[in-house]
């Protein structure tokens, strides 16, 4: 039975629950907007990274480099699109 629950994944799951609880602090405590967004950004990206590395086994084959470049590229373009659009349509309109 024990071999079906590898420590790495159990720890990963526990850690992701902890991160969720930390993120929930934003709701349950009285935080400034900046503080809250900082907490959310940190917890969300750590969780996403956790999933990719621990659960999705992104780094286990020789295609590791292609996979990571793909994700980083997607992330870069995604962030450019989101913040660029906000700059154009909201912050500087």
């Amino acid at each position: 039975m024990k071999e079906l629950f590898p420590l790495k994944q159990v720890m990963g799951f526990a850690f992701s629950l902890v991160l969720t609880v930390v993120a929930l602090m934003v709701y349950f405590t009285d935080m400034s907007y900046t503080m809250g967004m900082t907490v959310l950004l940190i917890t969300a990206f750590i969780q996403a990274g956790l999933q990719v590395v621990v659960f999705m086994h992104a780094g286990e084959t020789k295609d590791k480099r292609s996979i990571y470049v793909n994700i980083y590229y997607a992330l870069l373009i995604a962030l450019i699109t989101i913040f660029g659009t906000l700059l154009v349509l909201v912050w500087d309109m």
Partner: protein
Amino acid sequence: MDFFDRFAVPHPSFLIYAAMVGIGLTMLAVVVGITYFKKWGYLWREWITTVDHKRIGIMYLLTALLMLFRGGVDAIMMRYQLAMPENTFLDSQHYNEVFTTHGVVMILFMAMPFIIFFFNFLVPLQIGARDVAFPRLNALSFWLFFMGMGLFNLSFIIGGSPDAGWTSYFPLAGNEFSTSVGTNYYMIAIQIAGIGTLMTGINFITTILKMRAPGMTLMKMPMFTWSAFIANVIIVFAFPVLTVLLAMGTMDRLFGTNFFTTDNGGMDMLWANLFWVWGHPEVYILILPAFGLYSEIIPTFARRNLYGYKSMVASMVVISILSFVVWAHHFFTMGQGPLTNSIFSITTMAIAIPTGVKIFNWLFTLWKGKIQFTTPMLYSILFIPLFTLGGVTGVMLAMSAADYQYHNTMFLVAHFHNVIIPGVVYAMLAGMTFYWPKIFGFMLNEKLGKWTAWLLTVGFVLAFIPMYITGLDGQARRMYTYSESTGFSLLNMVSFIGAAIMAIAFALLVYNIYYSIRYSPRNIGSDPWDARSLEWSTHTPVPEYNFAITPQVASTQAFWDSKKNGHELFKGDIEKIHMPNNSGLPFIMSCMFFVFGFAMVFSIWPVVIVSLIGILACLVYRSFEQDHGRYISVEEIKETETRLRGAKNEGR
């Protein structure tokens, strides 16, 4: 509205009825012809169900040529309408429809399939692979694209064409101002074609990353493959934006949401913004493979290695990122502040740097080369100065303060035609002429080809340079007429004459194809241009397995090395080859997408639901299907090889 009223064209005219009859008769002739010659079985077995990248490529090519004709007719109609002031050839509504479909057809249904034709035909051959990574998906990509194309062209005769410009800006494209189903066609037809293109992107990235011949590291890939790789990367990250955008537009039009409306918080500017988040990378998707083709053609006919391989690759990688950070330059006048405009001005001008690097690399490749002026080379040589002119006016447009003067004028129209025609169209024609013997086993006539190139250039200069002048004088784009007192008439007449000359050039191209089919010699061997990369090392016509033995590569010009420097390409013995089976599923599923799209356009919900179930059923079938492909035996390969080699020896 009465149920059947919706299917009528809202603004009929003699021209539209004539086109209806023309399209109807052509379709009838095709069906009767195929039945008469008993070709349905052949068509189904050899083409509709094929998963062979070469055949899929050829189908893309045929679609592209057909759409070049359709978009070209639109162009001539527009130029004729504007040739004289107060012309009444087209009314304003019809003019709106014509410039809208001209843009969509030329970009999405002519230029895109043309470059995807080159991806399909060339990339597996250049990297020494047997097919693409996912052959079945490749067929699905083509058929989805084809059905999207068909649906879009159907708008012309059923329900009315879209008329809000190829950019389809809201609120003009909203229900309030575009009451016909035309814009529904735009949203849904492009959506279906776009999904096909997205899958092409995934397919080719995987192919290039995983299926290269032994020894071919990334930095030893032929330059066209590099450009295809970068273009496909841009496809994968830009097309999802279009998918979401069109879905939101569809919801606004069909389900009454408020994304782009002008009340309840809707924001029409979001459409313009997201459209260009996709739209700007899209132009690089078109131009990079064109650059790739020039990078194949110029070294071949300058008899020199491509100058600056690494800087070519680096500049494309830089372009792939920069292409995503410049989109706001399409709407400098929309009202965002000077900070934003300055940022996007600077990023836009920065793109001129990697592009300039490429121009200089081509020039240095030509430097001291033994240049042969073949037709493909002629196009490439004409491309360099003409494209540079377009690039320079692009930098003018990139200056946001000055753009207030140029915005929405013919100056802009002149600029983007100046980069797209010498950039993309010349490359497509050059590439088509260059690879024609590999595809069809005979060459296009050189004399006619050079006439075409020169006529096209004369026509191009006459058609588009005057627009720079009228644009600066204030002639707005997308206006169906103007008064004589504006003084635009003379230059617009020159433009029309130029457009007519371009039409003659394209007619000459068609004649060239006909002439060459009849008279061109067939014993040209497999390498008629004495070229440099792997695609020329296999037989003509290319056998379905491409290479009997997987080639071994040690440089960027593997085939050249094998010819001149004694590099051994094909080592080892022939082994049995694994090939994918044909499948009718992609075609059937795409037909269901067509029905789905049509039903969505006219909001016929029961049909929408039924076709959606059909699409899902296809997916379920695919999930449970077990298809392990088939093997071509060693004997069969040897037989084919002997036959093809025989044909080649005759030629030598």
